């Protein structure tokens, strides 16, 4: 390398996106993960490690998946004949494999108890729901605009909806007085709030069933939200990635059902996000979808999905899996049962320890009320408790403030 000469390089600049904190990953939600990564619990080798309870990953039904994959590993081959393999290996069309889209559409219908129809031509594939939410934000809003999101919400939204898009999140405040349900007043207040900050509101984004609350939204509330977005002439994004994780199938109502009952009047403003990461426990596969009733959005989303395509191998494998009716019927049923049992077990356990939870009916988590245990009824008090739980009790759980909950 020769003689080393001390040079003062003016360090080359990076973008403001790269150097900003808008990705929100410095919140306790992510700090907890780091703590887990550094000291992960293991039954035998590290029984005093941190137990991960801050990641919504569904491992209760692994055995079912394992059995399927082992018995059907041929499904990931491409059968006989050169053409089908060649098409598959090179296939990078942003429309996605037709057989896979059809299988996804029918899986989505099945999860909703066949109470809504899905047209596979309206499905846009993305590498995970994370990408789907970001993509939709790019399409529905300009930098500086606002999305209204009910609190508490999934901490990842700060990154997914705001970071690269430059769009703002204005919270729709919900509180425990009515079990954190979304009210029309709260919607109106949020809207006015955004306007007072000179932001144009472009959409309302709800998660149904909700993360982190773990409850599905009631029909009347969904109707109210639909009416609200119609009145304001804005979009509605319904993130339904936990729709298959509702403990009792008849309790979940998708916005798709309501649209169908309204004969799709004003449906062009509604878009649904779905993924196989929660309901099918396959987050590693990176499979997400956008289902939109708006043609322009479908076309645009498809083109943009070039930046987040799902591997053709995965699409092929899952097309087989999802079209296997006996497998999917069985999986959905057993998964629900196991989730319900676990939920009840944990609620009981917490109750006996004196901790009340919000009565939930879905999801992979429970929303605990630990406010009686706070030294101070403030954010600082909450963080103090969280730190104790993380460092002394060795449990990684997510504090409400990282979900923007207005009540400590």
């Amino acid at each position, binding site marked *: *390398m020769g003689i080393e*000469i001390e040079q003062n*390089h003016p*360090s*080359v*600049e*990076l*973008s403001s*996106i*790269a150097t900003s904190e808008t*990705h929100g*990953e410095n919140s306790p939600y992510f700090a907890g993960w780091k703590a887990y990564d550094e000291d992960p619990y293991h039954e035998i080798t590290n029984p005093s490690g941190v137990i991960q309870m801050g990641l919504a*990953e569904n491992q209760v039904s692994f055995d079912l*998946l*394992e059995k399927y*994959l*082992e018995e059907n*590993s041929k499904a*990931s*081959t491409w059968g006989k004949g050169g053409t089908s393999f*060649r098409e598959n*290996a*090179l*296939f*990078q069309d942003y429309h996605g494999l037709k057989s896979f889209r059809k299988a996804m559409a029918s899986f989505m219908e099945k999860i909703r108890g066949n109470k809504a*129809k899905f*047209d596979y*031509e309206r499905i846009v594939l993305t*590498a995970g729901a994370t*990408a789907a939410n*970001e993509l939709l934000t790019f399409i*529905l809003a*300009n930098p500086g605009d606002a999305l209204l999101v009910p609190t508490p919400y999934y901490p990842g939204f700060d*990154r997914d909806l705001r970071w690269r898009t*430059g769009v703002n999140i204005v919270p729709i405040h919900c509180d425990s007085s009515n079990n954190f349900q979304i009210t029309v007043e709260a919607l109106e207040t949020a809207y006015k709030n955004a306007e007072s900050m000179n932001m144009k509101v*472009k959409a309302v984004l709800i998660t149904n069933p909700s993360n982190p609350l773990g409850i599905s939204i009631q029909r009347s509330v969904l109707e109210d939200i639909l009416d609200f977005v119609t009145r304001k*002439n804005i979009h509605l994004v319904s993130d339904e990635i936990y729709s298959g994780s509702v403990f009792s199938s008849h309790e979940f109502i998708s916005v798709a059902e309501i649209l169908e009952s309204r004969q*799709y009047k*004003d*449906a062009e403003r509604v878009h649904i996000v779905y993924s196989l990461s929660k309901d099918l426990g396959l*987050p*590693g*596969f*990176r*499979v997400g979808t956008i289902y939109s*009733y708006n*043609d322009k959005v*479908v*076309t*645009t989303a498809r083109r*943009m999905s*070039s*930046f*987040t*395509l*799902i*591997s*053709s*191998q*995965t699409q092929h494998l899952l097309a087989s899996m999802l079209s296997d009716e006996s497998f999917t019927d069985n999986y959905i049923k057993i998964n629900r049962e196991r989730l319900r049992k676990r939920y009840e077990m944990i609620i009981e356990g917490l109750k006996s320890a004196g901790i009340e939870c919000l009565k939930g009916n879905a999801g992979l988590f429970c929303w605990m009320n630990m406010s009686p245990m706070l030294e101070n009824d403030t954010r600082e008090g909450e963080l103090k408790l969280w730190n104790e739980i993380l460092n002394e009790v060795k449990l990684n759980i997510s504090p409400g403030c990282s979900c923007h909950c207005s009540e400590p």
Partner: protein
Amino acid sequence: MKLIVPLQSVVQGRNGFLLGSLIPCALFYFLQLYLKRRRSNSSNSSNNNNNPSSPSSSSPTPVLPRSSSRSNLSSRGSISRVRVSKLASILSKPDDSLYYIGLDRVLQDPYHVFVNPNGIIQLGLSDNKLCLDLIEKWLVKNLEGSVMGNGDMNLSINGIVPYQPFDGLNELKIALADFMHQVMGGSVEFDPSNMVLTSGATPAIEILSFCLADQGNAFLVPTPFYPGFDRDVRWRPGIDLIPVHCRSTDNFNLNITALEQAFSQARKRGVKVRGILISNPSNPVGNILTPDMLFSLLDFAEDKNIHIIADEVFAGSTYGSEEFVSIAEVLDSEYIDKSRVHIIYGLSKDLSIAGFRVGLIYSHNKTVLDAAKKMSRFATISAPTQRLVTSMLSDKRFIQEYIETNRNRIRRVHDEFVDCLTKLGIKCAKSSAGMFCWADMSGLIKPYSEKGELELWEKFMSVAKINITPGSACHCIEPGWFRICFTTISFEEIPLVIERIRKVVETCKSSS
């Protein structure tokens, strides 16, 4: 408007003019305008709903077929006018780049040797079909074990199903570092910890753009360049591409003077240039940057304090006598600020597996890697595919055989193709790599302009039934150049393609 005139005759007198004519006229005018606008709005929307079938030739965007939900939408009178973003409005318009229009035309009438022998032959997509048989053979032999794992590899379901690191599995990074080392001549080592994996090279370019520049900034790009850059860099990151024109007299090689000029012109206009984007080997020309030129580029970037993004996806597809030198190799030997150089790579070209979506960003800049790692959440490679590809890349014997065979086959097809074109009187730029030749058809176009080039492109499409990419789609400053990909056909199909080209050549010659 015809109603306005009779009114004047109704009211008489001076004041009458105002009361009787002007005001009612004005009112009528505005009423008619209002009615016209309402009518055109509802007729526009109902047009959209009633024409779902075949796309017209001027709007290649495939329109969605009718479905039950759509037919319900059109039957309602109230058409929602809910708006989408500015970006979406731009993106939803029919593509006006002949690169994409050409791809669409092939989709509508694709050539197939038995099923559709008169269809359009795809020569506009740089996919490599020459060695798919090797990949297929490997997969058939190894697939079952490679995803689920056999006993000795211990890749249980727990390894692919739960959340994995978003910037890629470490085993795959190691395997890719090794592959890159091999494919780029064996003279530079790549460090897996400097990698962020993404679902293809396309998101890698976009992510780097997000990291290195702000909206409204610009990158300098030598022309002609890969049409996809317009999408990857401009769309969401909002960064402009300033062309730095290269000429046929230089065999379209980059020259620093042109870079300097482009940079200072941009500065005069108040545009902040944040980096240079190059593809090496270059697409569409296929030439390789010499080590000297790489050094000059680095000096230039150093002097202006900007980044270099080197897209090296065709590094393994060399066939000429020149050896490919990665910019990473030059960094090794020269004391230079490594933090400004970033490499894009992927397996779509060199390993023919475009469908699997495997790409990467390679950088020494820790901040860039950090930010890119977070962004890779939006473009993660599917875990089972990562496992499969890791297996494939770890099969050293297979990879060695593949790299050699691939090079040989590309060389064979390239040499034959260029030879045949020369016999037709069409010269190609001197190239040493890539999957295409950059052909000079300027002698066949009339007038010598972009319009002439467009007409020739249309002739190739509709008369010869081949899709080739015109230079204008690649922002080439000289009209008449076309990119012809030869890896999407077999060696045996070359005569067929040449014959079709000959038809057009003769038509042009006879009409001039």
